[in-house]
């Protein structure tokens, strides 16, 4: 239960007096606080620094170390204080959690030290309040990533039992693992550089042929370049095939960016080999050669910074998109304006709006080639406005991109948004569980312990005569739940008594709901009379879909019977409470219910096993007594008793 709420529990219990005149059933016994102490100050000595607080403050969270009896282990008899040999600075935050109900994470604290303290004092980190939770999560993630990196570095030296394939893959991914890998790494790097330089030098004009103009080197030393190209492509092909073989998931590897770059880099060569003879497509083949420049991207395997740059551009896609969009808008506006401004002047280069695009782009990026210049005065005015605004438009998104890059670079790759969402969901789920602990705890204790106390309500007057005996039993119950919890449960129990309904959890409710839905379904059929019979008591009148009682005195018996027959119980014990509160219930139905309860003890999950009334004819009539209903058609008896039996299980 939350902090302040514990302080208001006495108020809520006092307000429950408002239910008493309305309730029809006697209330359960209140838990006694025999061992109630007057609220006292307790001293917590944490490594010499003394903290003092009320005992009640600590009792607010009974499932932590300080709130439970676990702290008695740390009680120092001579000094009459609780001594903890822990960090006093972190303890300050923890104690404030008890006082205010909010756990804060101080930024100057080391994350692992803080985690340890939380674990020691039994507080789950999900409780950290929203103001500090982001910071905590970020630091935690950084820390785990750092630990994982360290672990990987250490792991590399161990693990002798890897297959050849796995060793190869690790060698490819991390060249520092072995000397072979390093050699391979440098060799491929060298050949990438060689290939790129070859492509570049190929086009340099290289001296004169006897009777022709400048020829590029590629045409002069064709064989040499061809040999070089072949060598490089062979190395790349071998490397690609080896990576493909070693990859743990080949399909995923083939889809990855790096492998696509590899394929694109070596494909033109093979296509060229195949198509050497055909003259028509050689033009196309030449343009294919341009793809060889993609080999330079293979360097990104060798450079971490390049990878981060690519990742930044990918993650800044929205800012880049905005930049592009605003530029496009500006270009179109200014191109149009310039076109119409320069339309008047003769020999104007601004022949059309698309032609003006080139001028606008060159001017806005402050390049100013000078191949197109405005000649009219209006054109010059607008041209100057264009160049001024160009500076502004470009200067705006660039700092955003730069800051993005630096953020990513320093944080070493922010986790995926999807991962963060999953973490958030998990956190909310854990908090919900600990919060809903109160309601599930009530249902829990109902099923387990409180059946005992309910029997106390039955001979309430007996209890008054012998207070001693009941108190002992009371004590037995209180062993497992704290006083606060038991008082809260007592409050909820009073509410149940007032309304004569019980709390159940979702599952049971849904089963019961489906059950009533199924019950109501056959009411449309001719076996409408079966509904009458199922209620068990004599209803000569035709019931509606949800059975209306005939007179108020039979209300409880009616609903009780219907519910007894229609809902499913899991435990026998749950049936008992309604049976024992005999104040206004029809005894017959009680008896039948309780008898069935004692006879069988199985658990059923069966919505399936509920027989529809018409099909019950085949069932043999069980020995359990059915509610007396002589007018009911014979088919009802099995159905009603069967249903009773199920409900008693």
């Amino acid at each position, binding site marked *: 239960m939350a902090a302040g709420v514990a*302080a208001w529990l006495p108020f809520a219990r*006092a307000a429950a007096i408002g239910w008493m005149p309305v309730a029809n059933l006697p209330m359960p016994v209140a838990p006694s606080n025999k061992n109630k102490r007057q609220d006292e100050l307790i001293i917590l000595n944490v490594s010499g620094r003394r903290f003092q607080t009320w005992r009640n403050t600590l009792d607010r969270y009974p499932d932590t170390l300080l709130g439970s009896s676990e702290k008695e282990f740390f009680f120092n008899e001579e000094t009459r204080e609780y001594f903890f040999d822990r960090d006093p600075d972190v303890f300050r935050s923890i104690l404030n959690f008890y006082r205010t109900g909010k756990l804060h994470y101080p930024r100057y604290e080391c994350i692992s030290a803080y985690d340890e303290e939380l674990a020691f004092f039994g507080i789950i980190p999900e409780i950290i309040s929203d103001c500090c939770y982001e910071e905590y999560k970020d630091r935690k993630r950084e820390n785990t990533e750092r630990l994982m990196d360290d672990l990987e570095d250490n792991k590399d030296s161990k693990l002798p039992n890897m297959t050849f394939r796995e060793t190869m893959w690790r060698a490819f991914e991390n060249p520092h693992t072995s000397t072979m890998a390093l050699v391979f790494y440098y060799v491929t790097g060298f050949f990438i550089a060689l290939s790129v330089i070859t492509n570049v030098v190929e086009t340099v004009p290289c001296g004169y042929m006897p009777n022709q103009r400048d020829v590029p080197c590629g045409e002069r030393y064709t064989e040499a370049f061809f040999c070089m190209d072949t060598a490089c492509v062979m190395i790349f092909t071998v490397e690609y095939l080896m990576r493909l073989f070693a990859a743990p998931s080949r399909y995923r590897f083939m889809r990855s960016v790096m492998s696509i770059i590899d394929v694109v880099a070596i494909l033109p060569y093979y296509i060229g080999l195949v198509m050497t003879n055909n003259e028509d497509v050689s033009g196309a083949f030449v343009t294919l050669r341009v793809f060889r420049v993609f080999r330079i991207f293979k360097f990104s395997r060798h450079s971490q910074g390049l990878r981060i740059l690519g990742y930044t551009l990918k993650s800044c896609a929205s800012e880049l998109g905005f930049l592009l969009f605003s530029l496009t808008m500006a270009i179109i506006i200014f191109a149009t304006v310039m076109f119409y401004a320069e339309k008047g002047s003769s020999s104007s280069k601004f022949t059309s709006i698309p032609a003006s695009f080139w001028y606008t782009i060159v001017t806005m990026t402050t390049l100013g080639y000078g191949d197109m210049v405005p000649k009219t005065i209006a054109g010059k005015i607008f041209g100057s406005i264009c160049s*001024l605004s160009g500076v502004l438009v470009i200067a705006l998104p660039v700092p955003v991109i730069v800051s993005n890059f630096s953020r990513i670079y320093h944080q070493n790759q922010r986790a995926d948004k999807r991962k963060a969402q999953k973490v958030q969901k998990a956190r909310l789920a854990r908090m919900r569980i600990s919060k809903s602990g109160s309601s599930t705890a009530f249902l829990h204790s109902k099923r387990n312990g409180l059946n005992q106390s309910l029997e106390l309500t039955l001979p309430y007057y007996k209890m008054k005569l012998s207070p001693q005996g009941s108190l002992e039993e009371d004590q037995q119950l209180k062993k497992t739940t704290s006083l606060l919890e038991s008082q809260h449960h007592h409050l909820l129990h009073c509410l149940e008594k007032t309304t004569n309904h019980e709390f159940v*959890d*979702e599952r049971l409710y849904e089963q019961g709901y489906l059950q009533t839905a199924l019950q109501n379904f056959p009411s449309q059929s001719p076996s409408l009379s079966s509904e009458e019979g199922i209620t068990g008591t004599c209803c000569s009148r035709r019931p509606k879909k949800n059975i209306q009682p005939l007179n108020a005195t039979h*209300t409880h018996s009616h609903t009780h019977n219907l519910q007894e027959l229609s809902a499913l119980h899991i435990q026998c014990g749950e049936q008992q409470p309604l049976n024992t509160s005999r104040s206004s219930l029809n005894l017959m139905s009680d008896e039948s219910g309780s008898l069935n309860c004692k006879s069988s003890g199985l658990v059923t999950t069966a919505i399936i096993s509920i027989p529809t009334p018409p099909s019950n004819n085949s069932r043999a009539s069980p020995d359990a007594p059915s509610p007396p209903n002589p007018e009911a058609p014979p088919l009802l008896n099995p159905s009603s008793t069967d249903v009773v039996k199920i409900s008693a299980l």
Partner: protein
Amino acid sequence: MGALMVIFSLQTKQRRKRTDSIEDELELSAVRHRPEALEQLEAQTRFSRKELQILYRGFKNECPSGVVNEDTFKEIYAQFFPQGDASTYAHFLFNAFDTDHNGSVSFEDFVMGLSILLRGSVQEKLNWAFNLYDINKDGYITKEEMLDIIKSIYDMMGKCTYPILKEETPRQHVEIFFQKMDKNRDGVVTIDEFIDCCQNDENIMRSMQLFENVI
């Protein structure tokens, strides 16, 4: 392009100024309420000095400003009934505690109410309960008022109950109540009928003593 940007930035600055001023106003109007002196409260209620101290510490912790408004009240009460919707009943409770009807419950109201509930005589408690049920405070409990109250109590159960809550369950409950309480069958329950009837009912008498030892 530059002109557009300048105009845009001016607009945002103006809008921000407007929202800031609204927030400032809200802050200034935060209420600070200090309760009467401890001795006075001791005289007016039946709590001892220590008990008042404990009560006030809890109260002040939850409501540092010294008063509870209805929303906070509903929130606090709802924490005890996680499965259902306690807001309607909390509303009625709030009206019962807010004796001077000024829209907020101060510590004095709170402690007076608790004094009646925990340390009062049976007569006083029944009086308080009658006051709770009588929503419009006219001295009569009509069927509609009772139906509202009972519906709000059933709301606190939530929907996951056994047996399943039916539409007419509250109404039936009201019928039972009126049959018991309304002696002269005039359709309303007066304070005397109520107190008479409750004093004759063993169950109710017993349950009134239930919370004696709460503080």
